[in-house]
């Protein structure tokens, strides 16, 4: 859609980091809480299961936690609105920088179908892992990291060590 515009180079990583840090700081100062991502998806899953099988959802402690929100509507949640903003903000940034492009991210020699299988299975593992750890790179690593939470730092170090250890298995996809 933006084939006329040449994609702009990415922002300097330290400037992007300061930008993200200030967004996170504003969440602390305005709301008294940090950022998140996996929690919003859990709200969506809980709302979905509840609409198909309400008895089943209400019998499960995890779904119940995400269904009983202050407003009564599981989707009327802070993180759900924040993630809606992420979708819009990412799109605006991509549009302004000419980076909106229908493509598949992989190394040229790797098959598209293989990439899609890895994307799905990787997403599955990561979604599962983020629930086990009570948060992801946003809620634990960034937010908990800045608040110096012990569990968040343990999570962050575990993510890096494990990803480096497993990188060899997926090298054909990325190199």
């Amino acid at each position, binding site marked *: 859609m933006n084939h006329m515009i040449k994609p702009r180079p990415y922002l300097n990583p330290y400037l992007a980091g300061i930008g993200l840090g200030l967004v996170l700081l504003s969440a602390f100062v305005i709301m008294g809480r940090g950022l998140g991502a996996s929690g919003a998806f859990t709200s969506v899953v809980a709302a979905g299961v509840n609409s198909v099988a309400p008895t089943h959802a209400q019998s499960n402690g995890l779904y119940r936690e995400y269904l009983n929100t202050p407003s009564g509507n599981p989707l009327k949640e*802070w993180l759900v*609105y924040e993630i809606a903003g992420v979708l819009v903000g990412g799109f605006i940034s991509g549009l302004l920088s000419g980076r909106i492009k229908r493509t598949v991210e992989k190394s040229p020699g790797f098959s598209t179908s293989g990439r899609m299988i890895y994307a799905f299975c990787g997403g599955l593992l990561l979604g599962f892992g983020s629930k086990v750890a009570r948060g992801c790179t946003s809620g634990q690593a960034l937010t908990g990291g800045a608040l110096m939470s012990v569990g968040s730092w343990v999570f962050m170090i575990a993510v890096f060590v494990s990803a480096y250890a497993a990188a060899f298995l997926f090298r054909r996809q990325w190199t």
Partner: protein
Amino acid sequence: MDMNAPFYQFGMFDLETALAIAFAIGIGFGFFLEQAGFGSAMKLAGQFYFRDLTVFKVMFTAIVTAMLGLFWLSRLGIVDLSLVRVLPTYLVPQLVGGIIFGVGFVMGGYCPGTCCVAAVTGRMDGWVHLLGMFAGIFVFAEVYPMISEWYSSTAMGEATLSQVFNLSPGTTVFIVTSVALLGFSGAEFVEGKFKRTKSQS
């Protein structure tokens, strides 16, 4: 100056306004994730092959920025830190969750926030990754009743690094910032070395 932040905790606005703020903060979050290059799995995964250490640089710059900001705003009496929610620690589940998450990250190429940015900028693998994530959360929720006891084990409450290492918050902030700065110069060195070996071969 009167301490009156976090604003929401002082009842300065209602839930509807909080949700509008969530949307605005999300726009900023998504914007900088995309600007950093995190809509591209090739760039994110480069971290784990020493090709491109942007993930490390952006993450730790963000952590240090927010940490220093919060520390000084609290020191100046503007933010009441006791009203900022620190995530409780469950040591073993968080360690195990991190290990599973790390494999998923290098396999799938994104994390939950970055796959949103990838999807809206046209990456088809980002959409598939998003679907996989919903599936993973669903699987976890379904097995949750069987593992809920383990899930709540090794609880340490709202433990912070200052508490476990018995250091003052100021010293901890200083150490984390110094380690991050050392890490940044290390990252620049590694990237430079990678480029040199690549151009020689």
